[in-house]
């Protein structure tokens, strides 16, 4: 605990340092150093808890209503702390370089808020009672709103902030209701008391699980609650997008898992619901991502997809619990947690690399980019590793967690009860993998390969170490997890066992990781590397024996190729989007000599905004009530008092 507290203090100190040294040359360097040191200290107890399968906690006596303020680290919070501090440190260092490009927006408010947001996120996952949890939850919500508004001069950012604040408060409302139901039968408001008081009637449990799905679902952003996510991720600075996608939305997943530890094994319908939501979220998320032209919006939709994959693991785990297969539950939850960590890593790489592209070219529109691999080779390297990880190919970390989710679903197919129907989700997940491959070939190919499609990408240069270093470090971690899952899987299984209510000893977790084949993944990675190396040697030998020359790309004999003749991102994605028809959300406008297509969000533009207009019109009807005359308002007050008095009289008469 002392490490975590000092780490958090360093983060707060970093915020104050960057504010007080805002006109100082070294302010940013001090800020970055303090954040990295704070994250480094904070990650120590999390790793310790996770590898030793223990938990630490400490309480602060409070005179306020709501009981003591208890904070602690258990295996579940430790996973999220590791993702938070790992991504946080990399994104903060990157942020210093990123914000320096924009001379009009002062950087210090963003930096200070970023450090404080890290603290708020850490408090959310460490809170062990209702009061500190909700307090930290609101701090987190407000902090992220202000971070979205960093570039408040753009109308786009203001709109994204508005949508976000409405969405997050709907979620908070659901959480208040959920905790109210939970706390009814418990002695105090600490999580440990809530967990022991779960002999509550099944109606209350249904209410809690349903409200959790809404309250935490808005934050996690699965379909149809994802609508705030693409605008917010697109409008925020790129390192903030990385933090949002890597950690903030994962807090929703944390909340769902935490609720499972509070109410015990969820009923089967909840598991099926979560699995179904996960599958639809994964398929629709990647489909909508394919339709995007804005590189950051595209990445945001991929977060919707990956939240779906995480939910599939979570749902399979819940089903394992519901049907009484504890090992399946551990595997499912462990897969969900590992994918949470992995997604935090590779999605941060992608957002940071996309941010570097945006800064160096001034556009996020893929149709204006191209040929950046030659101009930004290190950014390209990081991006291609991140892409390979997100589509889930070996030997990278994304493969390990998707393979675990697959394995959970395959194993579910072996059972004799209704659980075996869960195997039907297998082809769905495979389709998601195939679509993700298409999508990242599109991004990587159109943005980085070929020839520049506009002067903006023609004039791009190397972004420098501050923008290239952090994503490359994260890419190295992705390769490490992908090649040596045997080191990372056991702690995830410990956390999964913690959620499933089957505590595992480190030794048991290692045995289970070996049983599912974690070691062989390393062997496969080694075989892949050795085979490729051997073939490379042969290829080099063969290439040396023949004459080699350079020429233009073959254009079927056409002598004057131009960059505009290249395939565009839209045409690349068109065949796949046409298969899915209206579901893909692409609206095409055809004229005699023009063709223009745009993608709309089926939920935001199709449902939320129209319904919002209906509510607004209804609210306007209430306008006459509010006229600004004091006499009117006094009349309202008096009539309310009279009505209450009448109510009391009637009640007294009844007795």
């Amino acid at each position, binding site marked *: 605990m002392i490490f975590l507290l000092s780490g958090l203090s360093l983060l707060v100190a970093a915020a104050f340092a960057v504010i007080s040294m805002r006109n100082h040359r070294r302010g940013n360097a001090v800020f970055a150093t303090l954040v990295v040191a704070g994250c480094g200290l904070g990650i120590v107890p999390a790793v310790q808890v996770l590898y030793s399968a223990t938990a630490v906690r400490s309480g602060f006596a409070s005179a306020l209503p709501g009981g003591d303020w208890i904070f602690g680290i258990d295996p579940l919070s430790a996973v999220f702390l590791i993702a938070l501090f790992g991504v946080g440190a990399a994104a903060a260092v990157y942020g210093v370089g990123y914000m320096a490009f924009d001379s009009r927006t002062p950087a210090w408010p963003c930096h200070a808020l970023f450090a404080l947001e890290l603290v708020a996120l850490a408090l959310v996952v460490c809170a062990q009672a209702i009061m500190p949890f909700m307090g930290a939850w609101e701090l987190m919500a407000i902090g992220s709103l202000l971070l979205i508004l960093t570039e408040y001069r753009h109308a786009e950012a203001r709109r994204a902030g508005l949508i976000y604040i409405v969405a997050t408060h709907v979620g908070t409302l659901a959480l208040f209701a959920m905790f109210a139901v939970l706390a009814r039968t418990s002695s105090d408001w600490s999580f440990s008391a809530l967990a022991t008081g779960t002999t509550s009637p099944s109606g209350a449990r249904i209410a809690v699980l349903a409200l959790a799905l809404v309250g935490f679902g808005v934050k996690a952003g699965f379909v149809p609650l994802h609508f705030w996510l693409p605008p917010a991720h697109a409008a925020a600075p790129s390192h903030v997008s990385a933090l949002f996608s890597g950690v903030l939305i994962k807090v929703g997943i944390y909340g769902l898992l935490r609720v499972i530890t509070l109410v015990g094994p969820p009923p089967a319908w909840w598991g099926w619901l979560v699995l179904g939501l996960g599958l639809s979220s994964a398929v629709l998320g990647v489909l909508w991502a394919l339709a995007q032209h804005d590189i950051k919006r595209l990445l945001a939709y991929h977060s919707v997809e990956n939240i779906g994959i995480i939910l599939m693991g979570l749902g399979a785990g819940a089903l394992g619990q519901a049907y009484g297969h504890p090992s399946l539950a551990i595997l499912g939850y462990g897969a969900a947690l590992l994918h949470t960590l992995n997604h935090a890593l590779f999605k941060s790489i992608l957002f940071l690399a996309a941010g570097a592209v945006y800064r160096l070219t001034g556009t996020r529109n893929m149709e204006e980019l191209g040929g950046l691999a030659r101009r930004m080779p290190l950014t390209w390297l990081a991006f291609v590793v991140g892409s390979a990880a997100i589509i889930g190919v070996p030997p990278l970390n994304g493969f390990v967690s998707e393979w675990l989710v697959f394995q959970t679903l395959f194993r579910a197919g072996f059972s004799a009860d209704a659980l075996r129907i869960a195997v039907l989700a297998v*082809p769905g997940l495979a389709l998601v993998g195939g679509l993700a491959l298409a999508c990242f070939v599109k991004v990587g190919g159109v943005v980085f390969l070929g020839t520049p499609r506009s002067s903006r990408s023609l004039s791009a240069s190397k972004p420098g170490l501050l923008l290239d270093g952090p994503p490359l470090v994260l890419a190295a971690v992705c390769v490490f997890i992908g090649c040596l899952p045997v080191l990372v899987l056991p702690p995830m299984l410990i956390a999964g066992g913690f959620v499933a209510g089957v505590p595992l000893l480190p030794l048991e977790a290692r045995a289970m990781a070996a049983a599912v084949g974690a070691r062989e993944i390393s062997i496969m990675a080694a075989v892949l590397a050795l085979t490729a190396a051997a073939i490379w040697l042969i290829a080099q030998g063969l290439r040396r024996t023949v004459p080699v*020359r350079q020429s233009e790309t073959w254009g079927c004999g056409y002598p004057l190729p131009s960059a505009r003749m290249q395939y565009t991102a839209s045409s690349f994605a068109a065949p796949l989007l046409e298969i899915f028809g209206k579901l893909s959300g692409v609206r095409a406008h055809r004229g005699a000599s023009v063709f223009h297509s745009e993608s709309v969000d089926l939920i935001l533009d199709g449902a939320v905004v129209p319904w919002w207009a209906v509510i607004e019109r209804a609210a306007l009807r209430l306008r006459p009530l509010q006229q600004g005359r004091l006499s009117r308002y006094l009349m309202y007050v008096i009539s309310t008092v009279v009505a209450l008095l009448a109510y009391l009289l009637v009640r007294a008469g009844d007795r």
Partner: protein
Amino acid sequence: MRAPEFMMHAATLVVVMLLAPLIPGIASRTRSILTARRGAPVWQLYSDLWKLLRRGSVYSRTTTVIFRLVPIALLACVVVSASMLPLDGRSAMLRFPGDVVAFAYVLALGRFVLVLGALDTGSSFEGMGASREVTFAALVEFGFFIALASLSVATHELSLSGMLGSRALAVTWASSAPALIMIVGGLFVLLLAECSRSPVDDPTTHLELTMIHEVIVLDHSGPDLAMILYANALKLSVIGALLARVAMPTMGLSYAMRLGVLVAGLFAVGIGIGVVESSMARLRLPKVPLYIAGGSALSAFALILLLQ
């Protein structure tokens, strides 16, 4: 795994690697016989590869390092996926729970690099081919995993070696043959799509606009092209071997017999491709998803039968 057994698996892999260029030859020979033409000899691909190995290479000035990685990554991925398949009918060199997923995803890694290499040239034709390739591959992946899930449900196994090399497959053939017949049919439909054969792609076309797979490798030449052509032939053999092992369980047989069954199965796949190619034309592109959906539906029926 004991050393002699391992040598057996390795020897089978070497046999398959040597025979791979023969299968497309058998397909085209079948076609030429059925359409009463003289046709190319069966070992045409061997001589093509030998010729390409001595030809010079031309690299486009637009391309980067990823273009030169394509033949290496593609071939490495196909070889590694082959090492996860129980070619000799009993076990693979590499087996672990969930290696079915690894098998498909290693092939996907090869495709990822291949398609990026196509976009690396900046050619509009290759962009078009890349777009078609990833579109159909995503759909094929869907159908392929339905077949894998059915096999896993039938045999209660998580690895290819367990599914295809154990007694469980023979037991399933005895108990629910209709389901397995549908899986075999579905896999053959998907094989034609995945390995770019008719009716999805026409390997004999000379018009870039109608190509899928050929157009992606338009800018590769010399030894690079030889390696890519070889990798494609090997991929056809690998998926053909998977099909052969599902269709013909060889549990109790001796090693020589099992190898014979494998080679016979591969030849049968080649003849099957030739028969399809000589009897039907390439489908219009918008019809291809329906074709793949049909293949997937076959496996889906099998899965429903087995889940009953």
